């Protein structure tokens, strides 16, 4: 009997497939797998190769040595694939080390106008694009620019450092050195010098520029590669005071509407049902008196104080630097407009695991969650208790980067106290413990 029981335990449950989902990017994959993908028919190849077979440990056989050298050769070949720009799809950008400037032809004529616009919008430069932009493209073409870059009045698209670096790394953009940087005599020449920037030069030029750390860049490219649209969030700029005002303003607005009436009503009910705090020192916890229903007893028994995430403290606490929303993420399915970005699907804070080795404090996490707008469980979850708890009332994603390896954690503010289980008539609906979320990714 015992044997069959054990066997039953070891047998995979029906939905075990979903549990043990192997993430290929978790471990280094054998680059020989890449050989099976023909790059010439890239478009038709939609699925990636399956996990390859690996050996347990090295042995001195020639066979194993051969496979290993084949793997290394495959990796070498894959990595040495050049970044080529077919003349038909060739997009050229020019590096502007001093930030956005109007084109030379317009510089003299439009000085008066640019001064005006500068006075109006201090956050952007005179050309109407973020001041951190550092690459401009005169003739943009292709799908990618639907979600990347910001156009100025002269129809040039300006890229932020991470956008420029991502496009170059992807082989979709050819960035040129400006005349001023290659000793062409002209000190402030922003024109194309014709010398392409290498990947190495681009990293040196863009990494570390305007808050772009390699951790943030890892997160940016990792999600971009998967098709998400990413924009900088106000929390990107550490030093700016009140940088996250815009988002907390939204929340405070919602707060006023949300719990206003219901909150007062709830407090009234509390007062009605709980005239004095129950203490165990003087008799039973439920208190003396008449109890006409179980509900009443349960309510009196709930003596553990809890916190309601819908009624947040009015002055939102300040977030501390790494625990701050730095990216807004949009799913590939979300229609995205550069001029009017919609409400983000996810908010991400990036943490460097090497400099922050401990889990954030409750106050740090609390402030981070407070800075995100209220996102209560949807109607759809009204019957699913565990879904509701998992979704929470506010949520944020922590991207923890350990030397280029990114792990994502979703942190949600759940309200266990709001889920009054004793009120639920149909308890059988939720049986079994909640399925644990796969850790990281």
């Amino acid at each position: 009997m015992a044997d069959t029981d054990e066997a039953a335990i070891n047998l995979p449950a029906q939905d075990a497939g979903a549990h043990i989902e192997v993430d290929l990017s978790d471990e280094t994959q054998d680059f020989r797998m890449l050989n099976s993908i023909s790059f010439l028919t890239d478009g038709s190849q939609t699925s990636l190769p399956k996990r390859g077979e690996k050996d347990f440990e090295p042995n001195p056989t020639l066979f194993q040595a051969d496979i290993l050298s084949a793997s290394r050769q495959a990796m070498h070949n894959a990595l040495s694939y050049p970044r080529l720009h077919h003349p038909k799809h060739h997009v050229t950008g020019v590096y502007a080390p001093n930030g956005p400037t109007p084109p030379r032809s317009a510089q003299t004529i439009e000085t008066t106008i640019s001064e005006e616009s500068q006075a109006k919008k201090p956050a952007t430069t005179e050309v109407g694009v973020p001041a951190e932009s550092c690459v401009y493209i005169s003739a943009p073409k292709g799908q990618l620019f639907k979600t990347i870059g910001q156009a100025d009045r002269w129809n040039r698209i300006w890229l932020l450092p991470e956008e420029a670096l991502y496009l170059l790394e992807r082989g979709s953009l050819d960035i040129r050195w400006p005349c001023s940087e290659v000793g062409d005599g002209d000190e402030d020449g922003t024109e194309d010098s014709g010398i392409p920037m290498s990947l190495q030069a681009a990293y040196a030029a863009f990494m570390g520029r305007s808050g772009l750390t390699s951790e943030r860049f890892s997160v940016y490219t990792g999600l971009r590669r998967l098709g998400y649209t990413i924009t900088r969030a106000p929390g990107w700029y550490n030093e700016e005071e009140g940088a996250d005002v815009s988002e907390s303003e939204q929340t405070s607005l919602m707060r006023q509407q949300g719990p206003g009436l219901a909150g007062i009503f709830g407090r009234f009910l509390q007062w009605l049902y709980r005239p004095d705090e129950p203490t165990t020192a003087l008799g039973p916890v439920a208190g003396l008196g008449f109890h006409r229903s179980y509900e009443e007893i349960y309510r009196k028994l709930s003596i553990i104080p809890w916190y309601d995430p819908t009624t947040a403290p009015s002055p939102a606490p300040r977030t501390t630097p790494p625990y701050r929303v730095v990216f807004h993420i949009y799913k590939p399915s979300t229609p995205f407009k550069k001029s009017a970005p919609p409400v983000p699907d996810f908010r991400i804070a990036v943490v460097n695991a090497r400099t922050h080795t401990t889990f954030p404090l409750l106050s740090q996490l609390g402030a981070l969650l407070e800075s995100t707008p209220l996102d209560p469980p949807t109607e759809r979850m009204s019957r699913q208790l565990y879904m509701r708890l998992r979704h929470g009332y506010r949520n944020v994603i922590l991207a923890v980067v350990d030397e280029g390896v990114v792990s994502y954690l979703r942190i949600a503010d759940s309200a266990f106290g709001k889920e009054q289980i004793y009120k639920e008539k149909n308890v059988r609906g939720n049986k079994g413990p909640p399925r644990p979320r796969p850790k990281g990714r």
Partner: protein
Amino acid sequence: MDDPSLPIPISYIAGSYFLFSIEAVTYLRREHHICGVLSGTLPQIPQQNVFLGLPLKLMPEEARLLVDKGVACIVDEVKVQKDGMRALMEDDRRKYLRELESQGEHAMRVQTSRKDEQREKALKKLEEKKARKAAKAAEQQQQSQQSQPVVADNPSKEQEKEDDPIVDLFADHAPTQHPRTQTTTTTTTAPYGTSMGVTPATSHPPLPYTPSASEHLPRPAVPSSYPLFAHLHADGYYLSPGLRFGCQYLAYPGDPLRFHSHFLGVSAEWDEELDLMDIIAGGRLGTGVKKGFLVGGRGWMRGWMRIV
């Protein structure tokens, strides 16, 4: 595969250590068991996260180990680029551009000839199919025999135009002329010029390989877990960052390309008090992912503790 000349310059950019040269990456992996983490996008398949490309990001521990071995040196890449490009001579610049152009031309030639080959193959297949069909048709319908062979050659051309997007995915930027008429002159084709733009991975051709002494940086600072790293590495293990598995270093018995990791390495001070819960949690975690949990620290007697 040429071995790069030593010491290999490691680029220090904004607090991280990068390698951009494929020769250096392959060499260090083969000879010194340094794998790093590939952090760039592969230009040939840019929409996935399983296979990544250059640059290779090195942990400070890896960079330190290589510097201590005398295999590599740390270079302030930002300074090198800025000063190097400013000091570039007119002749060097021209030479570099010429070189890039010839590379681009070569790439274009290779691609067009490959395309032609593919196209030829596809055409051949198509023709075979046609021929077979024609033969079949001829067998079945003897009376219409006289019209078939005449058309057999021409429709293949027409058909080919329709089939293009399916048969040849690169048809849109393939030569516009008919390939059969110009297989001998493959080079004179592309309607947009004869050279591809090239983005090189390294800045070595215009800039010198070994930068001047003023651009060298001191040895990288390493965390207190470095002794564990160095010890495991000396034992022949390949190490990679391990936060994803809840540890500091993932230890592989051989090249991670071919082997799964065996240990989850966590460093501790020799006389540090360990929380029993941590050990149990680590052990259980290790069992869950079929790896051993390993705690190590440097002691006054160079002793090592292993919990597996």
